[in-house]
């Protein structure tokens, strides 16, 4: 069992026997895990191991074949309605030539809690300002998003997740191709989120990040192989299981989700 101070409280995220399949192909079977509130959790697995399927399940994009998910003791749908779960995608997932500036994009994080017309109120503007200052993009707030560097784009997405006020942050490869400044800033922010008792689930290929600041780790290969304290779970045997015994190749990157399908793309992949 875990030995963190939060171990006695109920888990923030509890997944029991989760199975998900797409058109008969099993993506995840019988996966179970418990994450403590205020923990920084690394999600480690090969490409196609089910990392993004787990994210999708936590966001309610896929209907599990079996199993249950509780976030803060609530169902995924309830958690979504309360804006409890925020997702920070890989930056390749959108068109950066879109005529929007940094503020426009971050404001989109507030849409879920606005009225139907999405007219920003004063507290929305304040939340946007606060999070832009946190990620050090306030000076660039009027810049068209395509003119941001790779690291700044990641920070803009992080700010969008922050204004949502979510207690769970799902981050998809946040350290991919970022500059040193962004990496340092993100690591600091993650520590701050931990102090605010937010729970972070970070998919990553970088083992140094896991051992560097992840309190917990989830090892995944079509199911959850192991989860718990990093020091206990991150063993040579477990990693061999996770990566099927092959040599870790950290240079391989996951390609971003495909964009631009013209028909029914709301139903593809993410639903």
């Amino acid at each position, binding site marked *: 069992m875990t030995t963190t101070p939060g171990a006695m409280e109920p888990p923030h995220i509890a997944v029991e026997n989760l199975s998900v399949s797409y058109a008969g192909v099993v993506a995840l079977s019988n996966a179970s895990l418990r994450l403590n509130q205020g923990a920084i959790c690394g999600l480690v697995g090969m490409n196609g191991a089910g990392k993004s399927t787990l994210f999708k399940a936590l*966001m309610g*994009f896929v209907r599990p074949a079996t199993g249950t998910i509780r976030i803060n003791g609530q169902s995924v749908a309830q958690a*979504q*309605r309360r*804006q409890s*779960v*925020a*997702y920070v*995608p890989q930056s390749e*997932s*959108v*068109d950066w030539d*879109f*005529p*929007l*500036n940094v503020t*426009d*994009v971050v404001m*989109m*994080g507030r*849409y*879920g809690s606005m009225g139907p*017309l*999405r007219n920003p109120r004063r507290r929305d503007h304040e939340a946007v300002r606060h999070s832009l200052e946190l990620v050090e993009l306030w000076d660039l707030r009027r810049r*068209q998003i395509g003119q941001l560097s790779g690291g700044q784009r990641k920070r803009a997405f992080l700010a*969008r997740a922050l204004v*949502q006020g979510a207690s769970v942050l799902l981050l998809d490869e946040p350290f991919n191709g970022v500059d040193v400044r962004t990496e340092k800033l993100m690591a600091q922010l993650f520590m701050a989120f931990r102090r605010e008792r937010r729970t972070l689930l970070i998919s990553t290929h970088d083992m140094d990040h896991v051992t560097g600041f992840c309190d917990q780790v989830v090892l995944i290969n079509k199911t959850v192989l192991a989860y718990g304290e990093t020091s206990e779970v991150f063993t040579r045997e477990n990693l061999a299981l996770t990566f099927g015994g092959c040599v870790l190749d950290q240079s391989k990157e996951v390609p971003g*989700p495909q964009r*631009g*399908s*013209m*028909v*029914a*793309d*709301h*139903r593809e992949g*993410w*639903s």
Partner: protein
Amino acid sequence: MDPVNWVMEPLQHAFMIKALVISAVVGGVCALLSCFMTLKGWALMGDAVSHAVLPGVVIAYALGLPLAVGAFVFGVGSVTVIGLIKQSTRVKEDTVIGLVFTGFFALGLILVSKVRSSLDLMHILFGNVLGIRPQDFQQTLVIAALVLVALVVFRRDLVLFCFDPTHAQSIGISTGFLYYLLLSSLSLAAVAGLQTVGIILVVAMLVTPGATAYLLTDSFGAMAVLAVASGILSSLLGAYLSYWSDASPAGCIVVVQTLLFVMAMVFAPKYGLLRRAFNNQPSQ
């Protein structure tokens, strides 16, 4: 030529005033929609839907229903068929779109030739803005108003839907609703545009103003205003040019739109070819 007379003389004809009003309204509304079409990458969809509504228009006409009803059913229906075929076969999406819309269009051609009505194929294909009937005039205004209201009310959600549908879904916004909202607006705009420039050229109204505006600005709000302005300007200027040159109004409207695009492409302050050529000069 006296410029005042150039503007004023056509206004003495009731048919010309109606043509100017309807072209400007349809041009403006289609232009607003074109912002979403170009940003979502739906230009080919616009082409497909505008052709696929033809059988619906003919059937609605024959049954005495509003044309918009037929256009709506067949516009949304064609896209549903495209989706179904794409999911259940290995044929690529652009191929499916190409074969479905031409199939629907061909069906429409047969219906036009067999169903007894006063529908004139040439008017459907190339528009008949100078001879628009009173009931079509009213219908088109109503359709344009509907689309305008839908797009303005849901503009923020639609921008989000075009930019990042995954985020929309993750915060509980229904992307299915927005998808069908955009698709319905497209079908309705196609039938409105049909009255003005005809089925063949309506896709220009649904794409070109958005593309022109996209080259001129980095803000969605400014893009929408510029697109609508260029849509209305092209419609008015095109109608006048058509009057004075006795050329096809649809042709004139779309040629003006295209010329505006070319001007934006060359002269746009930030993304124009001139500016880019200037920027690429090796610095001494």
